[in-house]
């Protein structure tokens, strides 16, 4: 191709060569040249109603498909609005590429209209970012951006391009071979010595415990994880990022662990003598007070990011590598030695599994039901039934997120979509859109709270205009429930600014956007309402009014030891006590 092409054409051609099918974006002044090319370009553009939702939708797409999500925004406010989604993707290691327009080069630094230092602002919000001021750089930078976003520990990459570059003309030369990135190296394979050391560590354990996170999903290591757990016959808990890596109905699966993890998961952590962390980062919501976390355990930590090893908890054995590659090698050796080295502590490990099972029976997640009102836990049970472990469930942040994580089961990875590290409200609905666009024909439920739903309200227009069959389930308790829970437990019940008054009438709201909707108030209505939502070929807004004051348990108070859980509401005190 030697004919002249514009920077915008080259940009889209480069994106197409990366296999991009879809961009979530919002146009503006400096991206006009791109949108002119998009007008009749095969890459599909989804017009969201707020740039923040473009970044969340790109994340939802990436989380549910495993491919790199792409979002686009104009300079200044467009770019700053994208930033929350970038930080979210950075925290949860989600590969997305953001394209932003920048004011023409001769206006940079002059406080031009809609100028913001996007390159500077997003430095801490991305894995890497670029400012493109030369048209010839576009192909290389775009291919580099996708490489950096997806390779090693995935993350967001932003490419800021000046308007003069987007408008300029040049002859297009496909990037061909990527120029070497001198400072970007990824170690994937463990060496044999590390595997042998890990093997000794594993077979020497009497009470092994697998703590598996989002890294397992990033490296597509579900099969390897299952085999590993089965070979070692070890119980396994997931972080909120790992849910679905091991099927929830697998006998070795305990539950989520951490602040709202199950009693069994947190007691297991406290008693294990060999903690096996796979693709995890020892987040404070998992560990609680660090010195009380897994106090009896030696730690084997596998992660692709060297900077995660020893960051929060010192590992007795740290292996830098791709979880999939590490587990493959480990599984081979475990298989080979199961009948020799593996017999050593077999009896003790059987006793350990029985203990875990005992804890599971002792304090399962509560079965809560009331004839007259919908308990939020009951709602999640019903959603679990509706899903059958196969639906994509995209949640927002707060109480409903934790209940969903506790009660909804997943048969496979990439069904559970949530803002784990950043905890960004307003994530659930736009992420569900991205997940649905990436998985047409699949059941996608956006399970959100009434607070987060209000943050993403404008996206009802996007959903409506694309007739996107997302089922929006609002768990409506009339509060910012998790904040209210903390105010109840730690601030003497002084409910400060948490009431979500003036929630709109959902039938009318849905109708106003041209979609179907309904509100339900009791279990009987929930049953028919849910059936109606699932039967609807298009989008459906189901507002579920639940018990107003219900708390998520178990709960490890922030900074507490994980085995010191609040298991339930305080028992009523008898008169005279």
């Amino acid at each position, binding site marked *: 191709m030697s004919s002249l092409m514009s920077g915008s054409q080259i940009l889209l051609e480069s994106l197409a060569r990366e296999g991009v099918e879809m961009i979530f974006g919002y146009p503006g002044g400096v991206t006009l040249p791109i949108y002119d090319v998009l007008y009749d370009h095969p890459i599909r553009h989804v017009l969201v109603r707020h740039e923040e939702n473009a970044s969340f939708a790109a994340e939802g797409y990436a989380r549910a498909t495993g491919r790199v999500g792409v979002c686009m925004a104009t300079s200044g406010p467009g770019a700053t609005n994208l930033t929350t989604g970038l930080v979210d993707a950075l925290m949860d290691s989600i590969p997305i590429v953001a394209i932003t327009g920048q004011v023409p080069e001769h206006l940079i630094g002059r406080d031009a209209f809609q100028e913001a230092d996007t*390159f*500077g602002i997003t*430095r*801490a919000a991305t*894995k*890497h*970012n670029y*400012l493109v001021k030369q048209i010839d750089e576009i192909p290389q930078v775009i291919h580099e951006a996708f490489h*950096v976003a997806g390779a090693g520990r995935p993350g967001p990459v932003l490419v800021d391009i000046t308007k003069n570059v987007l408008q300029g003309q040049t002859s297009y030369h496909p990037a061909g071979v990527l120029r070497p*990135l*001198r*400072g*970007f190296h990824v170690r994937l394979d463990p060496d044999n010595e590390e595997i042998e050391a890990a093997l000794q560590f594993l077979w020497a354990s009497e009470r092994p415990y697998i703590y598996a996170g989002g890294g397992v999903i990033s490296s597509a290591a579900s099969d390897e994880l299952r085999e590993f757990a089965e070979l070692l016959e070890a119980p396994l808990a997931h972080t909120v990022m790992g849910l679905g890596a091991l099927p929830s109905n697998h006998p070795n699966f305990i539950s989520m662990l951490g602040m709202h993890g199950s009693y069994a998961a947190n007691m297991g952590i406290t008693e294990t003598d060999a903690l096996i962390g796979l693709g995890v980062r020892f987040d404070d919501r998992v560990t609680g007070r660090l010195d009380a976390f897994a106090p009896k355990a030696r730690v084997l930590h596998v992660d692709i*990011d*060297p*900077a995660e*090893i*020893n*960051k*929060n*908890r*010192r590992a007795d054995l740290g292996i830098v590598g791709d979880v999939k590659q590490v587990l493959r090698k480990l599984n081979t050796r475990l298989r080979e030695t199961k009948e020799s080295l593996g017999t050593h502590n077999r009896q003790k490990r059987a006793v350990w599994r029985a203990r875990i099972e005992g804890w599971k029976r002792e304090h399962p997640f509560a079965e809560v039901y009331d004839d007259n009102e919908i308990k939020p836990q009951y709602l999640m049970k019903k959603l679990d039934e509706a899903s059958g472990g196969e639906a994509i469930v995209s949640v927002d942040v707060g109480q409903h997120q934790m209940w969903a994580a506790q009660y909804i089961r997943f048969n496979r990875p990439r069904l559970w979509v949530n803002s784990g590290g950043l905890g960004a409200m307003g994530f659930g609905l736009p992420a569900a859109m991205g997940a649905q666009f990436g998985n047409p024909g699949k059941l996608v439920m956006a399970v959100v709270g009434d607070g987060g739903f209000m943050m993403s309200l404008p996206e009802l227009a996007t959903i409506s205009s694309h007739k996107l069959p997302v089922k929006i389930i609002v768990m409506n308790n009339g509060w910012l429930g998790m904040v209210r829970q903390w105010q109840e437990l730690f601030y003497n019940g002084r409910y400060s600014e948490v009431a979500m008054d003036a929630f709109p009438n959902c039938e009318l709201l849905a109708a106003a956007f041209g979609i179907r909707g309904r509100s339900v108030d009791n279990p009987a209505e929930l049953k028919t309402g849910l059936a109606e939502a699932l039967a609807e070929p298009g989008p459906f807004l189901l507002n579920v009014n639940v018990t107003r004051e219900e708390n998520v348990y178990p709960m490890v108070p922030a900074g507490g030891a994980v085995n010191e859980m609040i298991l339930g509401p305080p028992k009523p005190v008898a008169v005279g006590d």
Partner: protein
Amino acid sequence: MQQLISLLVENKPGALMRVAGVLTSRGYNIDSLTVAKTLDPTLSNMTIVVNVESSTHDEELLIKQIKRLVDVVEVVDLTDSQAVTRELALIKVTVSPDMRPALLKEADIFRARVVDAAATSYTLEVTGAGEKLDALIGLLHNYGEVEMIRSGAMAMGRSPKVDHREAFAEASRVSDKVRETVKI
């Protein structure tokens, strides 16, 4: 404790911002930072002196966090190495006429050069390890008001593979040859 780190980074806009950003966002305090391009103009060298809490789990953690940056080609921790560390200081001292000879003598001990002489002050240039500079500055306070600018440390690791006596001998042989050719 102070950690001395030497970096090789891509000579690109934003590289300094990225490195400084990792330090600030991870809560480290930069004592000094110097940066300039290397013989290869596409690369820059940075020397950073940073205050690190000794309570951290892993002394390598900061190094690993910096290494994650795509623009960082190489990171070396020179803290406990035999690296050559130098710093430059410009020091202006107000000094009364009767004290001027004594000051010059003192400066000479530290191999400080006078780069500007005024009626009421001298400006000295001195290079050396940080402690040497500290010592000189301490002494100069006895003469009058001291104004000072320091460059921050720059460090170069000694290559362990080089036998220093051998290298020195080789260097003198080369310079002998040079001397022969130009007939000094």
